[in-house]
């Protein structure tokens, strides 16, 4: 008899309790292995297989396949397992922008960026620019491949030798030198540049931001006597009043603010409270779209209301007023509301104007914001740009007073309103150096281009907030013959080290003593590097005492500037995707539709419908503005009359294939008024030109036609009935009839919830999905033909008056309907339903009848109209060997002629399931996250398993606010939407 071995006592006693295990769907091999017929092969089968092998071997050997080389590692790196991703913590920074990230590496290539959840500041959030930054790494068309001297290729040795001797000579001769850089968040780099300034005594460090927040700092210096950039707490503010600050899109730290803001906008039955948000603005930003009350104003009106609001609060609190003119907005009610929320209100202004910011400080002070919604314990490190210093630099520079100038991370030839001055300066300066990563207008005219590494190839650190540090580490060997700026400086200063060591030393010397978790500097460094962030405890609040002596002066200046303004004004604002235009050559960002106007690949002069009507303008009419710009007109509901809103970031001329000559450069409209760089101004003259323009928009119809597509209600109604606005759901549930049996899912049943109250329309999910799922870029013309490929789109509807409509956003991806209309019409069964409730596409089987596209009521299916990969006609990243390195190897690149759509990131589900299966356990809620949900800075998307009764998604599905899109069709979508609730005053 065979011996029976037993492992445990339970097994011996015969009552083995299996721990629940991930079963999942089997692989085809497993199915074959379990197939009884498959195992019993007969002699006939053997002969059949012999025949097939013989014939196919003959046929195959007759065909010649192109040889593709896969070269194995000579020495296998220790951690690299082919097919398995490695994650490295790093940091994205660009001027004032900051985001701690995790970089996904596959086979040595970084392919995806996610937010670092270890950071208490961003908590894992990202934004579209951060998501898209990975593509810039592979931009071999625009990136510099080697050092350049006067347009000719040179070597690092030659360049170093020449520049070193020049710098030494200039220092010895006492000549003036300058390095122009944006706000540097990196303490180590700052120290290194200070080292350099000490060595080369004539070297001035000129900090200058294209989009500046200097005024906030300056205003605090003026009103509190402290140069501080306070920390904003939108998560503590129950009343937010924003004067043109697009804090959810572009202002200061949108990723952080979105998360904070959303935490106050999410609402449920246990906590039926949300913040109230009032936005005054001259543009139409996503912050304005999310606001409960939005007041379109001209830039000068915005200032007038701000001052009037100050006076109203001052009157109510018995302080001295500024004798502001009356405005046609009821500021007293608003003042009352602010005072009602004393200590819980937050007033912000997007104007980079010290006078405005001083008034804002005064209001915040009166509203008791300091210490509550505005804290100074861990102030922000933003806004170190110094415009006046830069202006005086330009004046001297233009006259050739500098012997050497270096541009690091800045592009004044594009960003400065008077590029001719910069050009003259560069011409007159003997040594001009640009450290540009990729082509830009300034680098192209400098005598030396010493290309910096992309941030994913570099060592660095960052401190966005006092005491919150993060590290950046290279995740790939430099692709080209580039060298990071810090190393260049170390080389020039003849230090026997590299920046990696320098950074390590800095951290071990400066930061190691600030903690007591790690015993040795080495372990502190290693752990910090792994974690990506290092945070010290909150610092003490600064004792601020308000000094109002400067206010009346500020008021006078504001009054003067308001009075100077003409009838028609303009405002230039940073674009949501392109921001200041540094990343204009990134086709993902170019093709990201503006969530409000739905325009891609363009900027425009947005005007109100009334303005267009009275001036006989229609969409696409090209106008010239102040004889500086030529832009097409876009009629934008919800803008103030006589005000043109123009996005910055466009009109690059030397950015590369994708970014050049897209739109026009609105930086040229800005001006310097002696204290501030003003992004708004008067339109002195504008003229209609004879040309016309066709926009590439992804949405043309803006009304919901009275359909219950986005369902919304107000807070008051919600408190009475949590299903307010969602009454139709009950009706449809009651009346739903079907001939088919209800579906039943044994294992998982994946679903996604979208909280319309938390969604701000920031479009991060759109780019995250594009990055994760290898979604091609199709270009302006194809977008015009309405063939954008995005798997996830954000629909936007207006309702109400065209002068000031309310806006709703609705992220839309494949609904993964349980009764999917697309599935039953495909003749070849290329789209089918999985056992886990996912509507899947089998690209190999698809012949492209497009019937599924027609029959999808949500129109989320996309067709490959052309071959988008390796096609000269679509000369974006998919047409370049470098660009294709960004592709996710887990996702097929779709062929011409097949249909594709959101897959619920099936590759992520499969990976997580395989891992759980290997570890003999069940999947936990939150283990699988789709790219969109992971990227969302406001946590508006929740993915999970409906069959797991304790999952967040199952919980949210039962929320009375939940509804399904077009549920009357009984398609039973796996996507649920939570109604939008507005905190409106009756």
């Amino acid at each position: 008899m065979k011996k029976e071995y037993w492992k445990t006592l339970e097994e011996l006693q015969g009552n083995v309790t299996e721990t629940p295990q991930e079963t999942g769907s089997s692989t085809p091999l497993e199915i074959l292995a379990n197939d009884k017929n498959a195992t019993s092969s007969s002699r006939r089968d053997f002969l059949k297989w012999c025949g097939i092998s013989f014939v196919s071997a003959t046929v195959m050997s007759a065909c010649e396949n192109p040889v593709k080389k896969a070269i194995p590692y000579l020495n296998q790196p220790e951690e690299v397992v082919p097919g398995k991703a490695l994650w490295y913590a790093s940091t994205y920074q660009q001027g004032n922008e900051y985001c701690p990230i995790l970089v996904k590496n596959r086979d040595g290539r970084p392919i995806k960026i996610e937010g670092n959840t270890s950071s208490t500041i961003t908590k894992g959030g990202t934004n579209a620019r951060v998501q898209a930054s990975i593509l810039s790494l592979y931009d071999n068309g625009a990136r510099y491949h080697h050092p350049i001297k006067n347009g000719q290729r040179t070597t690092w040795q030659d360049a170093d030798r020449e520049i070193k001797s020049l710098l030494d000579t200039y220092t010895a001769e006492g000549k003036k030198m300058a390095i122009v850089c944006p706000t540097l968040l990196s303490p180590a780099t700052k120290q290194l540049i200070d080292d350099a300034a000490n060595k080369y005594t004539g070297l001035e460090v000129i900090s200058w931001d294209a989009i500046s927040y200097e005024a906030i700092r300056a205003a605090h210096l003026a009103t509190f006597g402290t140069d501080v950039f306070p920390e904003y707490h939108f998560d503590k503010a129950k009343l937010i009043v924003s004067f043109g600050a697009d804090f959810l899109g572009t202002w200061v730290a949108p990723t952080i603010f979105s998360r904070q803001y959303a935490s106050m906008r999410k609402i449920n039955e246990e906590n039926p409270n949300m913040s109230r948000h009032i936005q005054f603005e001259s543009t139409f930003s996503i912050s304005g779209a999310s606001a409960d009350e939005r007041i379109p104003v001209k830039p000068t009106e915005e200032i007038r209301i701000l001052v009037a609001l100050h006076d109203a609060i001052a009157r109510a609190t018995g302080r001295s007023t500024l004798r502001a003119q009356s405005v046609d907005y009821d500021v007293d009610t608003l003042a009352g509301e602010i005072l009602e929320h004393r200590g819980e209100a937050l007033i912000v202004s997007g104007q980079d104007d010290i006078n405005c910011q001083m008034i804002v400080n005064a209001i915040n002070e009166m509203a008791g914001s300091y210490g509550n919604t505005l804290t100074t314990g861990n102030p922000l490190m933003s806004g170190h740009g110094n415009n006046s210093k830069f202006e005086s630099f330009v004046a001297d520079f233009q006259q050739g007073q500098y012997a050497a100038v270096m541009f690091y991370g800045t592009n004044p030839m594009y960003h400065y309103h008077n590029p001719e001055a910069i050009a003259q300066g560069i011409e007159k300066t003997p040594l001009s150096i640009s450290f540009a990563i990729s082509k830009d207008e300034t680098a192209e005219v400098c005598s030396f281009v010493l290309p910096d590494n992309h941030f994913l190839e570099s060592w660095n650190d960052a401190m966005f907030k006092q005491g919150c540090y993060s590290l950046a580490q290279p995740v790939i060997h430099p692709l080209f013959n580039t060298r990071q700026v810090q190393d260049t400086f170390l080389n020039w200063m003849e230090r026997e080290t590299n920046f990696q060591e320098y950074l390590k030393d800095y951290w071990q010397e400066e930061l190691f003593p600030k903690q007591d978790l790690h015993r040795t500097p080495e372990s502190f460094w290693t752990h910090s590097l792994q974690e990506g962030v290092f945070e010290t405890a909150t610092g003490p609040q600064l004792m601020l005492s308000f000094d109002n002596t400067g206010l009346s002066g500020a008021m006078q200046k504001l009054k003067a500037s308001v009075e100077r303004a003409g009838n028609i004004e303009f405002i230039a604002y940073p674009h949501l995707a392109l921001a200041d235009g540094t990343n204009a050559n990134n086709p993902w960002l170019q093709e990201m539709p503006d969530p409000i106007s739905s325009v891609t690949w363009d900027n425009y002069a947005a005007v109100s419908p009334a303005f267009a009507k009275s001036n006989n303008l229609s969409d696409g009419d090209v106008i010239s503005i102040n004889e500086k710009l030529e832009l097409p007109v876009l009629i934008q509901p919800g803008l103030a009359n006589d005000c043109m809103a123009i996005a910055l970031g466009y009109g690059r001329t030397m950015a590369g294939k994708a970014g050049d000559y897209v739109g026009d450069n609105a930086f040229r409209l800005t001006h310097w008024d002696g204290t501030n760089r003003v992004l708004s101004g008067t339109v002195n003259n504008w003229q209609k030109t004879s040309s016309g323009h066709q926009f590439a928009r992804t949405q043309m119809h803006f009304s919901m036609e009275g359909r219950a597509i986005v369902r919304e209600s107000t807070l008051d109604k919600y408190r009475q009935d949590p299903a307010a606005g969602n009454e139709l759901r009950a009706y449809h549930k009651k009346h739903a009839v079907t001939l088919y049996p209800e579906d039943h899912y044994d294992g998982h049943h994946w679903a996604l919830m979208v909280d319309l109250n938390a969604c701000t329309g920031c479009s991060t999910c759109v780019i995250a999905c594009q990055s994760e799922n290898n979604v091609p870029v199709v270009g302006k013309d194809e977008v015009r033909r309405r063939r954008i490929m995005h798997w996830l789109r954000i629909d936007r509807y207006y309702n109400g008056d065209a002068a000031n409509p309310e806006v709703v956003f609705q992220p839309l991806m494949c609904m993964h309907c349980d009764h999917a209309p697309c599935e039953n019409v495909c003749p070849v069964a290329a789209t089918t339903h999985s056992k886990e409730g996912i509507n899947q596409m089998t690209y190999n089987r698809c012949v492209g009848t497009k019937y599924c596209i027609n029959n999808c009521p949500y129109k989320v299916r996309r067709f490959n109209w052309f071959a988008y990969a390796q096609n000269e006609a679509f000369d974006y990243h998919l047409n370049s060997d470098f660009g294709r390195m960004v592709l996710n190897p887990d996702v097929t690149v779709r062929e011409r002629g097949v249909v594709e759509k959101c897959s619920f990131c099936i590759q992520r589900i499969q990976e997580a399931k395989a891992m759980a299966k290997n570890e003999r356990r069940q999947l936990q809620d939150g283990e699988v996250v789709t790219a969109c949900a992971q990227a969302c800075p406001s946590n508006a998307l929740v993915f999970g398993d409906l069959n797991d009764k304790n999952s967040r998604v199952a919980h949210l599905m039962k929320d009375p606010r939940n509804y399904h899109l077009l549920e009357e069709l009984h398609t039973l979508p796996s996507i649920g939407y939570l109604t939008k609730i507005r905190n409106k005053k009756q």
Partner: protein
Amino acid sequence: MITNLDISLVKGRKSYSQITEELLANTEGRPPLWWLAAFGLGCLALAFGGWAFYMSLSQGLGTWGINNSVAWGWDIINFVWWIGIGHAGTAFTIFFLVFRQKWAGSINRSAEAMTVFAVMCAGLFPLIHMGRPWLAFYILPYPNTRLLWLNFNSPLFWDVLAISTYLIMSLTLWYLGMVPDLATIRDRTKNKFRKLIYGIFSLGWDGSLYTYNRYETLMKLLGGLAAPLVISVHTIVALDFSISVLPGWHATILPPYFFVGAIFSGFAMVLTLMILMRKAFPIGDYVTEKHIDNIAHVLKYGSMVIGLAYATELFIAWYSGVEYEIYTFFNARASGTFSTAFWIMVFCNAIAPQAFWFKKARKNLVILFAISIIINIGMWYERYIIMVSSLAEDFLPSSWVAYHPTLVDIGIFVGTFGLFTVGMLLFVRFIPIIAINEVKPIARLGKDNNTKNEKE
């Protein structure tokens, strides 16, 4: 029973040999100048189509005007339109066979030819509208090692079966109907080569009573088999739309409506061709005013049915209370983006043919010709309305788009015209345009009647 209708089926007192002479005239001798010119034009159109065809195959469907929302455009509009035209031929043969409408005998042949070429044109579209036409065989049910099978729920698969069956059936009917005539040509021709070719295709026809007997039986059987196909093919094309969820598509009225529409447009095309052929060939005695008058009556009747269908659709949309249906029919179609096309459709299909209530209109060749063309334009618009209005403005207004065809779309359409023209021209050149074997029996009836009339 002989009705008065049969009296003037063939005009003039013609002997059998005279009929043969007259009806074979087109296949003998040199081709006339107009034929060569028309053939050249047809080839030109075909070449344009060839370019468009090449563009869509080499570049992709992006060369067409369709987009993310309107994924079917001119391709399927033209497909349905051609299929509709392709209806009349078989309908003529079958229904008139079943209903013993002998007057149709002289029109059968060319109507069937029209069917064959129209179905060929139509069949082209489903093939090239695929994203990957080189994998078109995926939609055929063939056993394969990958254990892949088709989705029998999909109307597109039914389409494949219906259209291919219909094409085979039409071809068979058309060809077998020609056999006795081909034998006539074989017997008359002196050219050895022609004799051989026609000899092969006439399948050894000997004209004996036995043969005739079997032939009649075969034709009746085939006719009986084909009758349901005529209904099924367009019904199934209609199901492509009915099965879907879209407003304006998801309607049970579509199968009968499509069927009537198809007969209607097919008859209009027959009328167009008949008027042209009467001009081109001396067949006025065979395809008489009476024939044309009858077709006009059928068109008038069809027009009323179509008009009723339009009205029913509107009524049901309103009666359903479904906001999407109401929007599609009343806002998008009747008064919105597509109102011009909609009212063109209504005028062409439901109003213009009402002129045939008047005898003067039925007698006037110019009016007849004009209305036959108007109907075909109207029927094209009908398909345009169904296709584009439902797709361009469906459930979510965010996806609403405009649709415009490109030059390639137009090229393919023109190319199918070229194919049709060239096909028809070859047909009139090499095959008797009027079935001699079918005309001869009616001619005798007519002759008898004529004599009877004279006696009276």
